């Protein structure tokens, strides 16, 4: 759990940096690479957006736009960008998990029916990286040199739907596979504990009524006539 402990020492400042992101236009956020003042005295520092360490600026722009399409802010609840899901993805891509630590990664890499799962040689982080590049290549060809992020929201949605259906012809990776892992990661970031960078303020848990890490319901197993009353709590002990 050392990863988690590390996160808890840095995440308060990261969280503050990120809070500003939803208040400024996406394009501006993408371009900013402000100095990270860091440390525990950052409370007084100007709020600056999270700086991606894994994704390149172009990839980051795609991630932010895709997050906004897949889980938009709406009347139901907060959006993925509001909750810091791009930050989650950037941080999660730097974990051993995203490098294939728990996957069998040896060849030969044979084609097989979908019932056998992903059989390629890319770990998660490369699936996303290669897929993002393919999506932008596709967009530039199909849309007069424009990247995904330069397209209108409705066009972006159509492209994501096409990727989901596997009907986009990518060269290096199946668009369906790329989409499935992208969506999985966006959902993970939206719902995982705030310690990992997404789900800021337990926003998604509040939306669906999940009590988070509370993990003690002995007194509520047989209650039928009223909704569970307590708000969520996270791993750091914060209450939502």
């Amino acid at each position, binding site marked *: 759990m050392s990863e988690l402990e590390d996160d808890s020492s840095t995440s308060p400042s990261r969280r503050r940096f990120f809070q500003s992101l939803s208040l400024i236009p996406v394009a501006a956020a993408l371009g900013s690479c402000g100095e990270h003042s860091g440390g525990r005295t950052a409370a007084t520092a100007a709020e600056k957006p999270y700086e991606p360490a894994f994704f390149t600026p172009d990839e980051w722009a795609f991630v932010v736009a895709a997050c906004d399409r897949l889980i938009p802010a709406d009347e139901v609840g907060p959006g993925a960008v509001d909750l810091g899901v791009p930050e989650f993805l950037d941080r999660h891509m730097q974990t051993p998990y995203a490098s294939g630590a728990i*996957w069998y990664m040896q060849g030969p890499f044979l084609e097989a029916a979908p019932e056998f*799962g992903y059989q390629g040689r890319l770990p998660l982080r490369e699936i996303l990286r290669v897929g993002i590049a393919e999506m932008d290549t596709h967009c530039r060809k199909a849309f007069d040199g424009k990247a995904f992020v330069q397209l209108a929201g409705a066009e972006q949605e159509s492209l994501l739907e096409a990727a989901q259906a596997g009907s986009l012809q990518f060269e290096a990776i199946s668009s369906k596979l790329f989409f499935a892992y992208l969506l999985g990661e966006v959902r993970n970031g939206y719902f995982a504990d705030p310690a990992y960078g997404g789900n800021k303020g337990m926003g998604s848990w509040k939306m669906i009524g999940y009590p988070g890490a509370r993990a003690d319901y002995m007194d509520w197993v047989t209650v039928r006539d009223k909704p569970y009353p307590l708000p969520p709590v996270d791993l750091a002990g914060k209450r939502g």
Partner: protein
Amino acid sequence: MTTVKPKVDVVIVGMGWTGAIMAKQMTDAGLTVVALERGADRDTQPDFAYPKVADELEGSVHRKFLQSLSQETVTIRHNPADVAVPYRQMGSFKPGTGVGGAGTHWSGCHFRALPEDLKLRSTVEKRYGRRFVPDGMTIADFPVTYEELEPHFDHFEYVCGTSGKAGVINGVIQEGGNPFEGSRNRDYALPPNPNYLGAEQFYTGARNMGWHPYPIPASNASRPYVNPYGCQMGPCNFCGFCSDYGCINYSKASPNICIIPVLRQRKGFELRANAHVQKINLDAAGKRATGVTYLDAQGREIEQPADLVLLCAFSLYNVHLMLLSGIGTAYDPNTGLGTVGRNYSYQNLNRVTLFFDKSVQANAFIGNGGAGTTMDDLNGNQLDAAKSGFVGGGIIWARQPGAGPVRGISVPRGTPNWGTKWKQAITDSFRHSFYFEVQGACMSYRQNYLSLDPTYRDGFGRPLLRMTFDWNENEIKASQFLVSKAQEMSRTLNPLSMVGDAKKSGSHYDVTQYQSTHTCGGAIMGADPTSSALNRYLQSWDVSNVFAIGANAFPQNNGYNPTGMVGALAYWSAKAIRENYLKNPGPLA
């Protein structure tokens, strides 16, 4: 260079349920025991401590409590003509690793086998005629009876603090239990856990159908408890991090809390973690094991000589070690000859989810892995196979091991996977839906088997185990029959909507979807050394000082979770070793 350790009486490979049981029984008999566990040592503190466990990303995405597949996995194909490919990401089944093994991340459902299921082939042939068993179906009677196992079922339940309600005690039917179960000597160790909404609704639905609902026997303690070994358990608080997670509360029975605390204090017992057994060593004639060779944490090769070798790894890896070590003859589906690898079977699982409006407080985040409600009206002798058209029954149950959003939220049919409509659907569903599952038996077949893969290797250079498995028409029919019954029952509860499908005709085994970790067979027990790898005491027919304890011994799988049966078989085998083998080492049958 291999380091040779001093010889011990018994070496145990793997420290999950069976390893812990055998270590306890062997040290009780005064033997010196070394247990070799491939994974790390683990205990409630610090490994399963709150709040760290209440972390879905670690538990359900990073799979912190399960085996990593990076060094060891299996390859899978649907039939012997195909080329197998690796099980690269965890999906259909979830082996464990580390001290406690899968016994730390299981759910807790703790069944005994039905008497008739232990005599499956003869029961079916007697009732429906020999020709009723389809060609290629290789089901067999277990070479042990319910009556012989009863004291061992009982003991394991008391070790685990199993919470339930007896249905038949000394032949007398008990109100509230399973009236179709084998007769037991006494009630469960503890009364059932309280019912969450879905388990309560199952009672209503099942009674609407004229069935006999009863509490799932759950090794999730309903009360404070001290087991026969003096190990303590605390009552389950329904934390909702159960299946796939270690228990924070000393509530879910595990080797770590129910047996190993005793072993750790014993002089004749040594546990070596991060000790990965590579093979069982045989004498020149191949008739006697001399011990095992393992790699320690530094990768050094160590030989551990022993008089008795007990294979207590996860079922698949027991078979793997036997094949790698040349114990018995590898099974060949073309000739039907050979014993190791045959009769691999699984579990036939499908789910039906019911959605309700916001007045219905299902609270899926409240969870207890083993507890819930089930029924046996379509299982064992209750099922008329001539009418249903398939062999082997199954159960329908309500279970709620605890849900969270990273683990996934079921949504009504037609809901998109993302966007505002999806957000609305998960928000409407999360606290207001529950599910029922059908858990069907899985028969064994000539073409479903385990062998060594010719291409893929593990992290130590050994061939991976290769699984050849697909659904047969019998299991597809069973799935359709049981799911239709579950849907019929569900409709009597008037949900807003339901999702859930049976297996479609011609559909194939999908390794990407979790179904169950009930991988059975491959080194089965039997009465005939030409069609089984183990005799009725789980002793290798070929190398008599090797025993392979686990679900690998099942000739086919029934409609229940295997752990209760696995524990009982371990105690049964241990009794034979203590009472007979030690006096006169050699074949027991």
